[in-house]
């Protein structure tokens, strides 16, 4: 099916080549990092994990969110999602790949990465996260390949794929739970030592992921003739609304526990995050932007009139996505290190090298989404075109 990604119009190729250029430039920056060591990043003794691991955390959520389309369609037979389950799965595949890439650029000896499999250590949550992420990738590759292949031939997918799809549902929950467990079980880091971390990860994932999917659906409608229709977008919008409400609720729970108990080792992290600590307020402006976007987007989404108006829904979805990206992709990891275990207040700012490598990985993810969506829509295009001739509906052409 890959051949479908190799034909396209000029716009398609301009977009693909632009992404590849970004990836190429990022690769040069990675060579620099590889040759000189991770010292070229803003990371150091005190802030040991930063931008890379934060992107991993955020993107695991985006990947897990595919379950929000798979579950209603396969468990509740919610037909409106029929067209977009594959889009959700393709986002999942791209996001997990980005997660794995972010881990690989973060480790000091990438060529030794397979030591994790050579010397499996079941007590380490990183070992389980590796299994969870790679397993989820394999599951989604199999599921999308089989279902799209069947669709291409105009047949129902084989029966054996159903249990695999059902398995992918708890597996999606597991990837974000285990990723939360990376942080939530460390006595050294009180900021993350909260039982609500995994639920919060899931809530924010189920808001950010579907918000992104809505944006992708609407972009597809604009740049291709694939129209997802109104109902799936509206249902996704409701999912985003509930998930965002639960996410904000859980954040407030965290703030209450830290502030009311007043225990310094918990409170100081929140002070750093929202107000700044000992003159270091690198995170505070970001967190206020995140908080304002969160509240604004929720107010917008809760109002059915706003939600139903797609132009406003787009604004709300961008706000949700940005708010949660700042929260998880910027603040959550770094704040765990400020103050440090010794009570110091280090300043961490990612370097250009770090940001360029990250940009490259995001470009890689976007390239994967583009290529995979192209394949899906091309397959769909044939299928839909045939039906159009039969039913004389408005023309829907292939995604090239």
């Amino acid at each position, binding site marked *: 099916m890959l051949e479908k990604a190799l034909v396209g119009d000029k716009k398609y190729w301009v977009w693909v080549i632009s992404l590849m250029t970004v990836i190429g430039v990022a690769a040069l920056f990675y060579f620099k990092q590889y040759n*000189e*060591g*991770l*010292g070229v990043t803003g*990371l*150091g*003794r*005190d802030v*040991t*994990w930063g931008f890379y691991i934060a992107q991993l955390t955020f993107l695991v959520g985006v990947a897990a969110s595919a379950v929000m389309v798979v579950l209603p369609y396969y468990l509740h037979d919610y037909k409106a999602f029929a067209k977009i389950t594959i889009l959700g799965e393709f986002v999942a595949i791209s996001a997990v790949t980005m997660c794995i890439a972010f*881990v690989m650029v*973060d*480790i*000091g*000896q*990438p060529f*030794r*990465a397979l*030591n*994790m499999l*050579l*010397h499996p*250590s079941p*007590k*380490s*949550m*990183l*070992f389980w996260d*590796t299994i969870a992420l790679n397993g989820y990738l394999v599951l989604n590759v199999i599921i999308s390949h089989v279902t799209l292949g069947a669709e291409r031939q105009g047949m129902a997918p084989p029966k054996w794929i159903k249990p695999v799809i059902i398995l992918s549902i708890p597996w999606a929950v597991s990837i974000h739970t285990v990723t939360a467990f*990376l942080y939530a079980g*460390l*006595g*050294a*880091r009180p900021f993350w030592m909260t039982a609500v971390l995994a639920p919060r990860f899931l809530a924010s994932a189920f808001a950010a992921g579907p918000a992104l999917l809505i944006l992708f659906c609407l972009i597809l409608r604009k740049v291709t003739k694939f129209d997802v229709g109104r109902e799936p977008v509206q249902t996704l919008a409701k999912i985003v609304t509930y998930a965002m409400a639960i996410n904000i609720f859980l954040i407030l729970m965290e703030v209450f526990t830290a502030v009311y108990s007043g225990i310094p*080792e918990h409170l100081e992290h929140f002070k750093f995050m929202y107000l700044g600590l000992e003159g270091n307020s690198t995170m505070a402006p970001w967190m206020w932007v995140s908080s304002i976007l969160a509240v604004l987007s929720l107010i917008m989404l809760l109002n059915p009139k706003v939600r139903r108006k797609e132009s406003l829904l787009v604004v709300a979805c961008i706000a949700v996505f940005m708010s949660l990206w700042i929260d998880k992709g910027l603040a959550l990891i770094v704040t*765990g290190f400020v103050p*440090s*275990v*010794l*009570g*110091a207040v*280090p300043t961490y700012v990612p370097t250009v090298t770090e940001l360029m490598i990250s940009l490259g990985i995001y470009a890689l993810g976007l390239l994967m989404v583009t290529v995979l969506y192209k394949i899906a829509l091309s397959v769909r295009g044939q299928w839909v075109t045939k039906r159009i001739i039969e039913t004389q509906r408005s023309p829907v052409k292939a995604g090239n």
Partner: protein
Amino acid sequence: MGLDRRKFFKVSGLTALGLAGGSVSKVFSGEDSLGTVAPVRPEGPLTAQRWAMVIDLRKCHEQADCNDCVTACHTTHNVPKWENPKDEVKWIWKESFEHAFHDQEHPFQQESLKHLPALVLCNHCDNPPCVRVCPTGATWKREKDGIVMMDWHRCIGCRYCVVACPYGSRSFNWRDPRPKIQKIEPDFPTRSRGVVEKCTFCEERLARGMLPACVEACKYGAMHFGDLEDPHSNVRELLSERYTIRRKPGLGTNPEVYYIV
């Protein structure tokens, strides 16, 4: 202290396996200082069921300018010296009391304690969180004597152990350390960039019958090293006689470095 030492070495001498390296005589012919430095003893490794260290901060404070233990450790182990604090690699160093004992300081603490540095190093915890999180088994607690070991060749550099250590005792090689080693000690390996390292209670010296380099270097008897499982060891007697504290005891890691304050 002499009595404790003698008892300690009697026990360890009995368990000597004759595996000592050739450098024993070289080392023990050297100075005999006031601290817990070993007297000449039969060849063989130093062994214990659980190694532990007691640091007398008061003796240490009396010698505010002394840096002998740090220098001895870092030269023995080829620890690089970086100017930029974010790249620093440290096995043992002086940390202010308020940082080392973050949860035990208060604003009205005696001035001498507040700002005077405390020696910190890997605590060789009995329940080490760094070992629990390592995804490759590159760091582990040695069954026979409780030392938390490091395999620099297996370490993938994920730094999960650095994140999990509540004491900041682990260092990552953010850059190639070799150009920054002042004088390479041929008896000990250098590390490559991208791996984690830390104090190993000088397991390589213990195997050759020598005390840890820092203990040996301390001229003021501020560092004591011995077997926690032996009720007559130097460390046990100090612990039973003196008031001692450990860093972050509430976390359940059971550090094996104790402090007399």
